[in-house]
């Protein structure tokens, strides 16, 4: 299984930044979602960030909320998400970061959850509503399953806390570029460059930036700030939403968009 380390060091040699698209697993349905993810891989995605849909995604804006509803309505659940990841890995050995809300892990049982998803081919987990303060509830089982634990740093994270987050994080640090929930933004906050800079001085773990990045220009800005990866979610999920009746168009637009960003970073 391909590791993050390998991807990041290969990209570094080529002087490139990792392109990390985010998808809600099963949006709008299992087959279309799989086709979209494969298209993203073909368009140059280096790592995938995949979210399991949840009924109450408090860290997400309207675009991803709607994707969660589409996926759940078409029957996506934790067991089917495992199957989905196996199918992605059958297509390409690409590192996968899994994103979910804590209740899904808790109900499944952390040990079994992480074990099963690692076996399916996941590299890391990020629990959207679990901070480092309660990390103890997942780091043990995640590590013994062989998974990296990704945590977030946000624009309002103080220096002391940033150190503690960096220390608990393996795989990559998820740096949130704006105060707020997920969603495309016209512009990023001015603090993002400073944030990336401070993190880089604290840790050797790669730093990836997400939330609000909606195009090549912003992706390039983040890259210049020193980020090792760029995570793009709502913008791509929005392309799924606006092409619901047109599978071909959906794949084409997402491919074009990702290829464009790939070229810019």
């Amino acid at each position, binding site marked *: 299984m391909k590791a993050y380390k390998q991807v990041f060091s290969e990209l570094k040699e080529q002087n490139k930044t990792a392109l990390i698209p985010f998808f809600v697993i099963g949006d709008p349905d299992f087959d279309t979602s799989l086709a979209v993810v494969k298209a993203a891989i073909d368009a140059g995605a280096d790592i995938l960030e995949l979210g399991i849909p949840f009924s109450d995604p*408090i860290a997400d804006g309207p675009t991803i909320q709607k994707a969660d509803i589409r996926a759940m309505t078409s029957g996506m659940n934790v067991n089917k998400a495992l199957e989905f990841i196996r199918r992605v890995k059958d297509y390409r050995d690409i590192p996968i970061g899994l994103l979910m809300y804590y209740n899904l892990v808790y109900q499944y049982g952390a040990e079994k959850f992480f074990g099963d998803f690692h076996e399916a081919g996941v590299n890391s987990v990020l629990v959207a509503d679990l901070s480092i303060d309660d990390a103890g509830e997942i780091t043990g089982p995640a590590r013994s399953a062989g998974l990296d634990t990704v945590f977030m740093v946000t624009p309002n994270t103080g220096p002391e806390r940033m150190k503690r987050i960096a220390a608990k994080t393996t795989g990559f640090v998820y740096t949130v570029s704006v105060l707020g929930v997920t969603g495309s933004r016209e512009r990023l906050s001015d603090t993002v460059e400073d944030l990336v800079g401070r993190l880089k001085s604290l840790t050797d773990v790669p730093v990836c930036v997400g939330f609000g990045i909606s195009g090549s220009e912003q992706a390039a800005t983040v890259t210049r700030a020193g980020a090792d990866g760029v995570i793009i979610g709502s913008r791509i999920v929005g392309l799924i939403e606006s092409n619901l009746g047109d599978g071909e168009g959906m794949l084409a637009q997402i491919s074009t968009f990702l290829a464009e960003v790939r070229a810019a970073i």
Partner: protein
Amino acid sequence: MKYKGRFGDYGGFYVPEVLIPVLEELEEAFYRFYEDAQFVAELAQLSRDYSGRPSPLYHAKRFSEHVGFEVYLKREDLLHGGAHKVNNSLGQGLLAKYMHKTKLIAETGAGQHGLATAMIGALFGMETKIFMGVTDIERQSVNVHKMRLCGAQVVPIEGGTGTLKDAINDALRYWTAHVTDTFYLFGSACGPHPYPTIVKHFQSCIGKEARQQCIEQIGRLPEMVVACVGGGSNAIGIFSGFVEDKDVRLVGVEAGGVGVGRGLHAATLVAGRVGILHGAKAYLLQDEQGQVCETESVSAGLDYPSVGPEHCLLKDTGRAEYVAAEDDDVLDAFGLLTRTEGILPALESSHALAWLVSQKGKLDPGTVAVVNLSGRGDKDVSIVEERRPLAE
């Protein structure tokens, strides 16, 4: 965070990272001010002159005759705004002021907490936004209008079933993006730490007064204290005054909706399983995989799939018991109190009354039951009219 905010294993602060610094700031401010002499004095004065505390303890004799034991009502319905919610909104609003926050946001179900917060926003001159599900906006339109009259903006929430849970989701999202100047005035004794502790603190006046009033008016403690449980604020407020009195039975009444086991309801402690929602580990109504269930109740204020963490612990230790009352019995109890006493109870509070009615013939005639009459039912008149039309 300085404290873990745990009640046994329940509670905590399961929130996205971006909210941690804000909750830390809130925790720090609460512990700095809650015993501060000036803060305490200002809150005491406003509680008396603005809210109308202390609220009376009233012996409902004709209602008592009907059920066959002695029922005393803790009259939170008489407070300004018409519910216990003002206790919390005033306390947290004052805290917001001491923290130099200029804007308030709040979620609301029945509109009582939204109204209480809108009133406090007007009182302190703070810009106020209330998040409310579209279903609740429709069934609690009187309160929506009152909030607007107080100058608050009511933000309609379409997501989910358009009820309290969805309003909390969006209030949390909004807060995430506006943490610098905005104070989230949370309405019940649930959610992430430090809210369960803060809300309990500001609602504990109910229990303190009620205990004192029992001693003065009855000469002894009651056999039982009964309250409805949505998120759990009015219940924890009154329970807190009696929890050390081991002989006093504490009964929390949840929303049985159309029937636990038969259809949708909101009886979290009665029928839920431990899970994580809105920042806390607590009993939760959820499917097998952990997706949160839809709920239903005739009362918007109890229509919520989770519950305060301290109630979860009180249930597990057996110190309090939790039961459910179904919509039809609730409407009957509403009618009974109205006709026997001329008091219109909120449909939320009517759940507590419905359980008392169900105890008719099962309790000794000398039994004293104190009920937290958490609010008045003016807001519910049109629902009652629809469900129980008066004969011509």
